[in-house]
């Protein structure tokens, strides 16, 4: 390295500790060491001059601005979370209300709700004649296609919710089983249910929907027998055979 190069680099980077610069400084006999010393003094003065006083409280103001901004962001985030949580609660409540409304209008709910008005029919024991039972179906513009089940103690045409129905009570053994046949109410679902002290089955038939109900604790055999009897009577023997295949 020559003196010109040395001085050019020291003139730009006086604080450089590059080995080749230090080597030239220590070996040069043309005054480069003195030049280096002057450059260091100049930069000492420059550093001192540029180190202007820092305003009092600058650090605190910077930290306060950051803490305030961070707190505001946290509050914003918290508000957003609360709004989201409220939205979720409202959504769940809405879905719950819709589900409840839908459940209240379901056929099992309507059938069970229908029962208190005719609860006395469960205590009747005197069998009705086939003609009386037939008349109940005729009132709903429908006819039985199969043999009448034995032990029918009650028949009446009434409405279950909005649906016209034939309300029947059959005694199987000593247990009353209710059958609600809604001609024209077409539903494809078969369902069993338990609600408000009642056990029931809902089943689709070719011309309508049959709901069989018994008070909780009734024997399964009694309900099976009532279901079989009314299906055979409503669908007729042929349909029953096809249904079994």
């Amino acid at each position, binding site marked *: 390295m020559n003196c010109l190069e040395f001085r050019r680099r020291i003139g730009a*980077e006086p604080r450089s500790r590059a080995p080749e610069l230090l080597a030239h400084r220590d070996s040069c006999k043309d005054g480069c060491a003195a030049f280096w010393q002057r450059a260091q003094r100049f930069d000492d003065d420059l550093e001192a*001059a540029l180190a202007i006083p*820092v305003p009092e409280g600058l650090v605190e*103001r910077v930290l306060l601005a950051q803490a305030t901004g961070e707190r505001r962001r946290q509050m914003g985030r918290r508000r957003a979370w609360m709004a989201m949580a409220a939205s979720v609660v409202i959504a769940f409540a809405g879905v719950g209300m819709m589900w409840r409304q839908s459940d209240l209008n379901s056929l099992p709910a309507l059938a069970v709700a229908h029962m208190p008005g005719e609860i006395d029919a469960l205590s009747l024991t005197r069998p009705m004649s086939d003609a009386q039972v037939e008349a109940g179906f005729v009132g709903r513009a429908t006819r039985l296609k199969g043999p009448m089940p034995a032990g029918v103690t009650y028949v009446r045409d009434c409405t279950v919710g909005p649906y016209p129905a034939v309300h029947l009570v059959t005694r199987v053994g000593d247990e009353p089983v209710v059958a609600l046949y809604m001609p024209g109410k077409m539903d494809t679902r078969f369902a069993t249910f338990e609600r408000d002290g009642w056990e029931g089955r809902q089943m689709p038939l070719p011309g309508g929907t049959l709901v069989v109900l018994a008070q909780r604790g009734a024997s399964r055999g009694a309900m099976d027998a009532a279901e079989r009897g009314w299906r055979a009577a409503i669908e007729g023997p042929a349909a029953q055979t096809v249904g079994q295949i």
Partner: protein
Amino acid sequence: MPPVHKDVNPKQRQYEAMVRALSADLYRFAFWLSRNESVAQDLVQETFLRAWKNLDSLRDAESAKPWLITILRREHARLYERKRLDTVELDDTVPEEAAFASPERSGDAAQVRDAMLKLPDKYREPLAMQVLGGMSCDEIAAATDQQPGAVMTQLFRARQRLKDLLGGRAAAEGGRK
């Protein structure tokens, strides 16, 4: 100076330590960049706020100061753009008295400061980055999108210009014997 909170998370501790360690240097750099005390304070505050948001990108303590200086230069450029659009400057190159309100006001330091304020931006900025930021030519070149050789020339000329402005003092200290 004690920390604000003892039980703070590591990010907050890192941030506070960085503010305490580097705010003075950063303020001085901001002042020599903007030549205005209140603008410098605003720049420091904005720089640290931006640094807080991006603190995860800072990998090691050594690079904190160059990183902050880079952020501050961007903030200053933004501010300059806004000011150029929004206001009509009468004379914003006059430094505020408060900046030099210290016993060092008189004598050589004051002369050096006056000379520094007269340096063109292209010389004053890299010189402040080097003297106050401790940045090498290569680091300044990387931060300013220039070639290291160009930065070296600017730094050389900045010092020469300062010496010229300082007159006899420069002749006594910087001239070749």
